[in-house]
Every structure is written in C-alpha cells, then in structure tokens.
C-alpha cells in the first residue's frame, strides 16, 4: 500500500467521522468487522478522529482489548502530556458528551488508558480531574461510583479522609450517596463512618448506604458493631430495610423501631425465625 494511499484513506476516515460523529454506517461496519483496515491508518488520523474511532471501537465491542497499534497511537499523544493538558483533554471530552453511550465510551477509554499504563496518574487524581468541582448535572452517577470505587480501593486511607472531609458534606446528596456506596462496597465502612452515615441529613443517602452495607455484609468481619450504629435511625426507609434484610441475630436490637411496617416485618421474622 503506497504512502499516498494511506494518507488519502486517513483523510477519508476523518471526513466520515467529522461529518457523522461515528454514526456513519460504513465506518461503523469497518470498525466493527474489519478494524484492521482502520488500524493500518491510525497514525495518520488526527487526534479528534482517533478518539472518536477509539470510542467507536470500544462501543461496538466492549470486550475488546486494544492491540499494539492502538497503544502506539495512544502513547504518542497521551503518555508524555503534562497534567494540564490531560485535564484539558478530560474536561473537553467530558463536557461535550450529550449522549449516554458517548459518555460510556469515554469512561471506558479512560479506564483503558489507566489499565495500559498510558495514564500514570493515580485513580484519585483521575477522579479529581473528572469529578471535582463538577456540577451535578454533568456527572454520570454510574461512572462516578466506578471511578470512586477504583480510587478507594487503591488508597483506603485517602478514601477515609475524603468521606470524612468537610468538602464532602457540601456535595449534592445523590453524589454523596454514590460515594458512600463505593466506600461500603470496598469494605471500608467503620463504626465511626457508619454513625456519620446514620446521621445523614438526606434519607436517600443513608438508605443507599444501608442497602449497600446489607448487600456486602460478607466484607465486614464485625458486621454487628457496624449495624448497631443504625439501630436508632429515624428514617422509616432505613428501619424497614433493616427489619427486612438484617441478619436474624440483629432483630432483637431493632424492637425499638417506631415505623409500623418495620415493626410488622420484625414480628413476622421473629415468629417464623427467618
């Protein structure tokens, strides 16, 4: 294949991508069924087109692993960029996504970058780049939880600092809920933080946290001490959820619940020894 053919083909890929944002049938077919055709020209397409192709590549088959040709191109543009350039990249890309599938593809790319060592930042730094000081309406809750979970797993001490910081309190309640769930799913909840969660001003946050805890009890050796922090919870949703899903040995501690539905569930479970 001549050099000029490669360059003209790369121009064609650019033209198709820029006019269709990856929705063109032919380019989708090529990326899906004959990615090797595109891979030969990756070095010749511009960055915008490259990232659109990468998103498309991952979107059309999320189980794909990037081969050396994608990595080579990624390395050329990402590996040595400085912090502010990376920030710009994240922000620019992130803010321009209007559709969920685009956002999903973007986050998959970010996670691939990290997995392949193209981004050397810690998960906490990536988290900060993506989510810190971001308005709620541009935050993808699902991906927030995913990235936060990876960050918490990587650095549990920092996770504790973060959850107990004063900045955390000022976050939108839905965002706080996502963080608590990520925190609990990593087995990081301690009695002090559990107490703080119990005292959450938002019922939704406390409820989501308790649900996550009940779903991940096997991660906690001393689940009794942690659950005891919620025994005097006032939110009715939490009382009902605990009455329904807490281990049997915890039920007698809950007899003081004032919610009638929770009381009824407790009564039934105690009678039937469920």
């Amino acid at each position, binding site marked *: 294949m*001549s050099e*000029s*053919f490669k*360059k*003209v*083909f*790369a*121009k*064609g*890929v*650019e*033209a*198709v991508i820029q006019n269709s944002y990856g929705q063109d049938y*032919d*380019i989708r*077919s*090529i990326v899906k*069924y*004959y990615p090797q*055709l595109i891979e030969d020209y990756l070095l010749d397409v511009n960055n915008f087109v490259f990232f659109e192709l990468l998103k498309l590549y991952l979107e059309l088959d999320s189980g794909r692993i990037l081969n050396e040709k994608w990595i080579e191109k990624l390395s050329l543009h990402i590996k040595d960029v400085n912090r502010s350039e990376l920030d710009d990249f994240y922000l620019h890309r992130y803010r321009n996504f209007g559709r969920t599938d685009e956002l999903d593809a973007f986050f998959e790319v970010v996670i691939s970058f990290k997995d392949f060592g193209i981004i050397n930042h810690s998960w906490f730094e990536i988290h900060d780049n993506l989510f810190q000081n971001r308005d709620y309406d541009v935050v993808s809750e699902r991906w927030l939880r995913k990235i936060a979970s990876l960050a918490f797993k990587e650095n549990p001490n920092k996770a504790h600092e973060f959850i107990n910081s004063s900045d955390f309190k000022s976050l939108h309640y839905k965002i706080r809920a996502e963080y608590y769930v990520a925190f609990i799913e990593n087995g990081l909840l301690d009695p002090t933080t559990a107490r703080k969660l119990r005292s959450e001003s938002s019922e939704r946050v406390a409820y989501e946290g308790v649900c996550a805890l009940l779903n991940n009890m096997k991660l906690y050796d001393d689940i009794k001490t942690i659950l005891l922090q919620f025994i005097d919870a006032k939110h009715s949703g939490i009382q009902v959820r605990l009455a329904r899903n807490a281990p049997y040995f915890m039920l007698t501690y809950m007899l003081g619940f004032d919610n009638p539905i929770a009381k009824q569930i407790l009564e039934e479970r105690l009678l039937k020894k469920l």
Partner: protein
Amino acid sequence: MEEIEKRKYYILARGLNRLSVSVGEEKRLFEEFIKNNPQDLAQSLDWLSEEVILQIIMSNKENFREWLLSNGNNHGEVI
C-alpha cells in the same frame, strides 16, 4: 467487488473528495494520488464528487477522458 473492498474505496473516495477542495500540501497529495493511482481511482469512482472527477479530468486531459469513457462509468457524462 467484496463488501470490505467496497467500504475501503468508499472511505478512500471521501478522502479524495475532501482533498480536492484543499490547498497546499493536501492539494499536492491529491494531485500526486490521481496521477499515480489510476486503479484505486477506478474502484472509488462511484463515490467521487463531480468536482473531483472534473479535477481528475483536468489534470489528465488526454488519458483520463478516454479511460473514463472506456470504462463506461456514468461520471463520463460530466466531461
């Protein structure tokens, strides 16, 4: 032509369509391509813009007109 080949030449044609209206280095790339890759051009012809066809004809006044006509391609009509 196989499906994959068709798609490849469709993309190539899109590249040529874009390059034909550019200037400088890209224009030179376009001119070099139409001069040296007649076979690839023939395969892409169905997706080329009329403007590209005209430019191809203009830069190959003698041969290309004959070549197009002998291939019986519809684009020959624009000559």
